[in-house]
């Protein structure tokens, strides 16, 4: 029996991005099947964040191309953004606003509800009315996570999701990734926690100096 052919969620072809004269990404090609979890590993400065920022359309590739759910990364930027959510090193939060206000702003732009549910999901309901400026780094990370979940994306890019989190936060990330996978969401996860990530991932991609060294 012929196995069913699944459309790739992401297909990157020779992606390259440079900052000044340094190539942060060079000739990166890979395919991610829909509904799978891909772990992206590599040392600091290996290009993981640049790859995620490129795939989320935060930055444009200088060379190469990629299709995300059939949409071209550069030409169909708006469609790609509707399908992809990025958990970045940056929190994307307003410090002077409360956790609830931050999520409400995102919800208004997305045209969705579920602010309270998202706060509950990341265990921040008790601090919902506190300004983000009073939050620890781990709490900010959780709030950013809540924002990502509210987007209900088809593809989730998690850049160092375990960074700054406590053991309870680690468990939360694992739980959410499993939950997303069970719903058919494609997850890309850049992490230094290779052992932990391997337990969740279907495939792995190793980057070094902006190049894929192992798939």
């Amino acid at each position, binding site marked *: 029996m012929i196995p069913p052919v699944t459309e790739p969620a992401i297909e990157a072809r020779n992606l390259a991005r440079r900052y000044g004269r340094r190539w942060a990404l060079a000739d990166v090609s890979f395919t991610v099947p829909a509904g799978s979890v891909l772990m992206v590993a590599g040392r600091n400065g290996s290009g993981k964040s640049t790859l995620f920022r490129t795939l989320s359309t935060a930055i444009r590739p200088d060379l190469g191309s990629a299709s995300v759910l059939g949409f071209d990364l550069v030409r169909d930027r*708006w469609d790609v953004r509707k399908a992809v959510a990025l958990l970045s090193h*940056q929190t994307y*939060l307003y410090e002077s606003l409360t956790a609830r206000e931050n999520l409400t702003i995102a919800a208004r*732009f997305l045209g969705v509800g579920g602010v309270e549910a998202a706060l509950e999901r990341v265990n921040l309901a008790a601090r919902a009315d506190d300004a983000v400026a009073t939050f620890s780094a781990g709490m900010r990370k959780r709030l950013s996570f809540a924002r990502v979940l509210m987007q209900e994306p088809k593809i989730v890019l998690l850049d160092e999701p375990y960074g700054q989190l406590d053991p309870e936060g680690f468990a939360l990330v694992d739980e959410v990734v499993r939950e997303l996978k069970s719903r058919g969401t494609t997850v890309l996860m850049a992490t230094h926690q290779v052992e932990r990530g391997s337990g969740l991932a279907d495939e792995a991609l190793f980057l070094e100096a902006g190049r894929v060294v192992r798939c």
Partner: protein
Amino acid sequence: MLIAALRKELLLQWRSRAQLMAVFVFGASALLLFSFAVGPNAEILRQFSAGFLWLGLLLSSTLTLAESFHAEMEHRALEGLLLLPANPRALYYGKAIANWLQLVLLGSALVPVMVILYDAGTLRLGSLLLVIALGTAGLSAPGTLYAAMTAQVRSKQTLLPLLLFPLIVPALLASVKATSLIVLGDPMNQSKAWIELLIAFDAIYWSLCGLLFGRVVED
């Protein structure tokens, strides 16, 4: 989406309302210093009052405009909104309208200071407020665009006025002339022509800057 953007801006401004008070004090201090520079001659003070008011507003506006992107850049919140995805044009108009409202408030608050310091009272308060509204619209539209452009550079406080001031000369000139005619008397009803010119500049600024904003904030 514009409503969402505007609500976000107004909330952010409300949280940093103490800053508006500081900017008002800065503007009032500038008006006071101008009066010291001219001396005690009441007639000259009155004659230059419109120019001084707009200079005070212009200097204060660079502070509020530059600051309006601080929260957006601190943790790349603006990028986060663009990736949701939020329409860049809605984000621009939300911020430009919020900045404009802040400048209208600031301009209206500086009018009594001008009246007291320069003895430049007028009974045509409605017309004066209209000119302030139109003039500040001419500041906030390009000001918001340039504030976005300079928000990521280290010397933004220096760069913003350098880029902004040459561009807004026509709007500033029309605002000063119209205000001056309202304060000093306008027997030939010339202020109408300056107000019409101001409306034309505002229309150009608001439409062009809205179109360009996406290019400025996207990679």
